[in-house]
């Protein structure tokens, strides 16, 4: 069984139709569990006090902000190489979700930063690269909206996505590249496995991260299904318009002959 069969819009709609409710429910359960557990049932940090509770929003949203762009990169590459419309529409659908995740990461980071660093904002490498990623999301969405022909829009946004990927990766590894700035390194390094977060905070954090990941998948499926329908709607409306014009042309020609 090939993965490319899902490039067929009909097959994609059929498969995601039954998947979507399950993924949505799983996302809701994980997010509510992670956030309620983190907010109500975890202690204060000995140094950061109750602000540590912001971690259950900040880390999962930042993770999804970067991963959404990387998913868009993969989908854009598939579009550029194989010209599957579903992949281009999936990248388009992922962008607003990634934008909101980036905004949440920036917002919660600023609110957390003020009591801990004494400032809402600093031109720190990770913060700055995240702000640029946010601007790339805005530019990507604006480019899709600005171009009428869908295939050209998909081509140009795919190229923009390739360029923006530099900042998506930079925002993840900026702390390692430049050993300066206020933002700390990752507390949950996936590659090395050595984390600096105690279990009491780590378990609800992981549940929240899984929840945000599932929420992204659910919204991606919903958004892609909407974009597939919107594309078909546009095609049908164009066909109707062309048919109406064809009908009007003979009657106009007859009117013109009559006046002459």
């Amino acid at each position, binding site marked *: 069984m090939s993965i490319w069969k899902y490039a067929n819009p009909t097959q994609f709609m059929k498969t995601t139709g039954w998947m979507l409710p399950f993924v949505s429910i799983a996302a809701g359960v994980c997010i509510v569990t992670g956030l309620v557990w983190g907010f109500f049932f975890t202690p204060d940090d000995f140094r950061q006090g109750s602000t540590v509770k912001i971690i259950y929003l900040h880390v999962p949203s930042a993770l999804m902000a970067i991963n959404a762009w990387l998913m868009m990169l993969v989908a854009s590459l598939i579009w550029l190489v194989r010209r599957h419309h579903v992949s281009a529409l999936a990248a388009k659908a992922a962008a607003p979700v990634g934008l909101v995740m980036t905004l949440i990461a920036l917002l919660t980071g600023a609110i957390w930063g003020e009591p801990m660093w004494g400032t809402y904002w600093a031109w720190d490498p990770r913060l700055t690269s995240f702000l640029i990623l946010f601007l790339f999301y805005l530019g990507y969405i604006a480019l899709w909206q600005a171009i009428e022909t869908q295939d050209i829009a998909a081509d140009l946004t795919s190229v923009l996505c390739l360029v923006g990927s530099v900042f998506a990766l930079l925002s993840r590894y900026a702390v390692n590249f430049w050993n300066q700035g206020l933002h700390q390194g990752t507390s949950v390094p996936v590659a090395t496995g050595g984390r600096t977060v105690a279990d009491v905070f780590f378990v609800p954090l992981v549940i929240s991260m899984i929840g945000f990941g599932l929420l992204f998948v659910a919204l991606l499926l919903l958004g892609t299904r909407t974009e597939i329908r919107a594309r078909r709607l546009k095609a*049908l409306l164009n066909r109707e318009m062309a048919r109406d014009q064809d009908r009007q042309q003979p009657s106009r020609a007859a009117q013109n002959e009559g006046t002459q």
Partner: protein
Amino acid sequence: MMPDLGKYQDAVLSAYGGSLLLLIGMIALMIWRARSVKKQLEDVEKRST
């Protein structure tokens, strides 16, 4: 039930309030658009058959 957030209460509550508002707003908008496009498509398909 509400945990004692101490002197950081405003920061924590505003982070949660702002984030949940953004999340719920995004989900609501996406569901609204999905329903609207689906309805329009059904109308056009009915008209053209």
